[in-house]
């Protein structure tokens, strides 16, 4: 059985340095030897504020689905998706940069709305495969009772999970848009001027990204909180986002109106985001926004309900 | 009733059992060994779920792997789950009884459930049972067809102290009824109480078999330690040391007080103690040999098998 590395000094264990031992009755002067007690002891350092703990949780929640610090195999699928998300933007930026004869601004080749639209498939795939991991792994490992008893409050955990999911999705949605923006600065004839002219786009890009990210995060987490098996969460989410559009379109045809399209959980947010970017009103108007808000709120409610005090976790 | 003859078993590159031979007769035999040392392999071989790579296994004269008939008289409680949540305890046990050809399956099921202490809960769904109760259902399943040979792998997992004690008594009584019972357990104090014989497996080989006390007595190179306590016990210990009766004296630090003395020969120590205690005027409130239990014997067997190191 392993024991202490150094013998205990004559003092009570604690801290890193022990007191002097040698010396003896020699009187004044440095001791001839010192023993240091390195055994396990109580932690006497200062504790960081809670936001540091939540940050650690969020960091872990983002690393895991991306396969960081794990085997190469677990990185394949997530990085494939990331590549698919960034490729259009990178390509569109690279062409004018590398081929000076082409004098077209990247944003003219692909507008932000189109970027969002092409990325929506990647978003779907990412939410389906990566976001549930944020919750299902902990459930499957049965680590939650340990967390809630000795580490985190339920509120901190839910907050951390939500921030992880949102961060992951922003990586897919906001990232490429920023690449487009920054790339455009680089390729513009007058970078400074272009920036000054388009700086107002940034808040709209951010807002539009959030418009897409929030309902998807809410939906993905809500479905994941209902099960401990990732495959069920994935299936549930896909069911909603694949069947939803079809249903809403069906209803639209039957009713011969456009408003059912507002209930499309996959396409709806994208349309809203486009509207935000273009500064135009939403196609289905206020109804679309209501549905959007309902999705976010309902998803969050399920999440909180499952992990709250009365919930099942 | 059970014969294992020069059996070896490989799993790919690892050898789980190496040239093991023993026979089992009526009564309870304990099977001891570390995790991964080959115990579960022994049980699997006897249950017939695995075939030996070399050697022969015979249960009641038949090959458990090849002959189905053997299983009519064989009861097995394996490690791990084996119950269905939706059926009642009675239903599950009766079903298995019918499968094994028991005549009045329902009555047999009720009787055996009573015996394992589940009489009151017999008609409740197993899904609602605690871990310990489910364990007892599995025991009932193994007993319902009145088997002559029983194989029990960690049968007390999840049982509370009262249940454990009751089941230790149950297993002991099964042995007294003339059945051949092989029990594998890590809690050696309980094995000592149930089993009259033990088989000790270390690193895939059989290192000892027989009665625990007799095995212990065969280990002649064991140090014999005795716990002494009473007023003036320190003086007694000093005298024992001075007279060369004991080789070392140690204060007992586990909180009970007194001293632990080590002697090369136990009888010489026992003979010297009364006279020397009287000489010194030490009252003997406790004279207790330490390390005479199965757990110490087992630890010594492992050390001995290893030879050097650790």
């Amino acid at each position, binding site marked *: 059985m*392993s024991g202490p590395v150094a013998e205990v000094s004559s003092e009570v264990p604690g801290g890193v340095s022990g007191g002097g031992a040698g010396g003896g009755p020699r009187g004044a002067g440095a001791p001839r030897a010192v023993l240091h007690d390195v055994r*396990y002891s109580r932690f006497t350092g200062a504790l960081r504020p809670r936001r540091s703990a939540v940050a650690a949780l969020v960091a872990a929640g983002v690393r895991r689905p991306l396969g960081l610090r794990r085997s190469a195999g677990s990185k394949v699928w997530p990085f494939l998706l990331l590549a698919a998300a960034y490729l259009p933007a990178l390509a569109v930026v690279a062409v004018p940069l590398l081929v000076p004869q082409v004098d077209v601004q990247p944003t003219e080749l692909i507008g932000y709305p189109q970027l969002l639209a092409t990325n929506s498939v990647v978003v779907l795939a990412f939410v389906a495969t990566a976001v549930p991991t944020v919750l299902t792994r902990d459930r499957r490992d049965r*680590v939650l009772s340990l967390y809630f*008893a000795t580490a985190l409050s339920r509120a901190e955990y839910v907050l951390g999970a939500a921030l992880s999911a949102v961060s992951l999705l922003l990586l897919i949605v906001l990232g490429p848009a920023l690449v487009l923006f920054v790339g455009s600065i680089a390729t513009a004839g007058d970078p400074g001027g272009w920036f000054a002219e388009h700086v107002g786009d940034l808040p709209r890009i951010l807002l539009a990204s959030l418009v897409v990210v929030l309902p998807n995060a809410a939906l993905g987490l809500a479905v994941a909180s209902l099960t401990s098996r990732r495959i069920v969460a994935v299936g549930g989410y896909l069911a909603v986002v694949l069947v939803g559009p079809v249903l809403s379109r069906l209803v639209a045809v039957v009713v011969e109106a456009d408003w059912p399209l507002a209930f499309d959980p996959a396409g709806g947010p994208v349309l809203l985001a486009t509207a935000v970017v273009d500064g135009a009103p939403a196609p289905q108007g206020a109804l679309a926004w209501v549905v959007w808000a309902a999705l976010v709120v309902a998803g969050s409610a399920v999440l909180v309900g499952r992990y709250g005090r009365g919930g099942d976790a | 009733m059970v014969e294992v003859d020069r059996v070896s078993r490989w799993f790919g590159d690892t050898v789980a059992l190496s040239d093991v031979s023993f026979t089992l007769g009526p009564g309870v035999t304990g099977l001891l060994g570390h995790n991964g040392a080959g115990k579960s392999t022994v049980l699997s071989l006897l249950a017939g779920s695995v075939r030996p790579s070399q050697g022969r296994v015979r249960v009641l004269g038949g090959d458990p792997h090849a002959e189905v008939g053997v299983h009519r008289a064989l009861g097995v409680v394996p490690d791990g789950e084996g119950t269905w949540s939706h059926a009642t305890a009675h239903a599950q046990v009766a079903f298995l009884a019918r499968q094994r050809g028991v005549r009045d399956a329902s009555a047999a099921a009720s009787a055996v459930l009573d015996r394992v202490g589940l009489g009151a809960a017999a008609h409740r769904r197993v899904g609602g049972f605690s871990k310990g109760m489910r364990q007892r259902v599995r025991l009932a399943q193994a007993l319902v067809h009145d088997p002559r040979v029983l194989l029990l792998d960690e049968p007390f997992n999840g049982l509370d102290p009262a249940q454990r004690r009751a089941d230790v008594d149950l297993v002991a009584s099964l042995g007294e009824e003339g059945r051949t019972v092989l029990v594998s357990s890590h809690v050696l104090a309980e094995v000592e109480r149930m089993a009259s014989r033990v088989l000790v497996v270390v690193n895939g080989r059989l290192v000892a078999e027989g009665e625990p006390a007799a095995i212990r007595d065969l280990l002649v190179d064991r140090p014999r330690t005795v716990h002494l306590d009473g007023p003036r016990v320190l003086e007694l210990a000093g005298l024992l040391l001075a007279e060369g009766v004991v080789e070392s004296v140690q204060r007992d630090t586990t909180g009970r007080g007194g001293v632990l003395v080590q002697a090369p020969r136990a009888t010489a120590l026992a003979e010297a103690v009364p006279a020397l205690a009287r000489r010194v005027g030490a009252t003997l409130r406790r004279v207790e040999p330490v390390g005479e239990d199965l757990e110490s014997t087992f630890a010594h067997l492992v050390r001995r098998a290893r030879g050097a190191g650790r």
Partner: protein
Amino acid sequence: MTTTDPPAIECTGLSRTFGEVRALDGLTVAFTAPATGLLGANGAGKSTFMRVALGLVRPDSGTLRVLGMDAARERDEVRRRVGFMPEHPCLPLDMSAQEVCVHLARLRGLGHRDAVRRASEVLFAVGLEEERRRPVGTYSLGMQQRTKLAQALVHGPELVLLDEPTSGLDPAGREEMLQLVRRLSRDLGVRVVTSSHVLDDVERTCDEVVVLRAGALAAQRPVAVGHDPGGAVHVRVGGDPAEFAAALAPRLAPLGVRVAPTPAGDVGISAGTDAALDVVRDLAAEQGRALVRLVADGRGLEDVVLDAMEGRGERTGG
């Protein structure tokens, strides 16, 4: 530990019902010993009690204080000072022991450097060496149990709750775990509450046992039995015990002590006073007999605990 330290766990009138089952029924008890064993039948309320103490379940009524703090209201404070080693598998299998300890330390509020340092110390203390960098999924059961213990200790708690710490371990693993737990309370000053079904384990690591029955306290007593001068004593001597008993009886009669054979075939004397024991000793010396064994026949811990679990016998006290 001074006597002014608050009890490790203390509750009054604790009650909790799940559907129709009364898991806790007005439980009132204080855990004051350095290491306490928690025993009880399945369904007696042990796990519910632990879950309330850990803040995972709210009681219907009554109060529970951990280290002097209210378990429900001061939850955040309690979390910092308590460690928990669950019985069920609870470790992420793809992380190494090092990563698990660092991660949990950070979630508990330690900075990164502190977390790494503490993880290293605590993994060494439980005996995990090079294997600490491999994924937990590749560990043997013994190593996984040690990792669970390490994570319970990494933030330096004052109190550790262990649920069946030797579950599934083979005799060598059990021995090592029990020594670890004993060191925790003896040398490292950490208060320990162990819930276990194996009495032997509790006897070797705890100073006191608390037995629950039907959601209430059934018995609370120290593990070690003090010397009882009036209690019976069993003596095993060399040679024929009957001869020895026959010579002994008249010498003990004046002291009012009787001699009778024991079930194990030894010589039993009814009262082990020092005077009587000296008579035994002197007779053995005179006759040149070996004195093989002399032990008080106290009611063992097991009997007391089983009686309490089944509702017989003493209510409290030792």
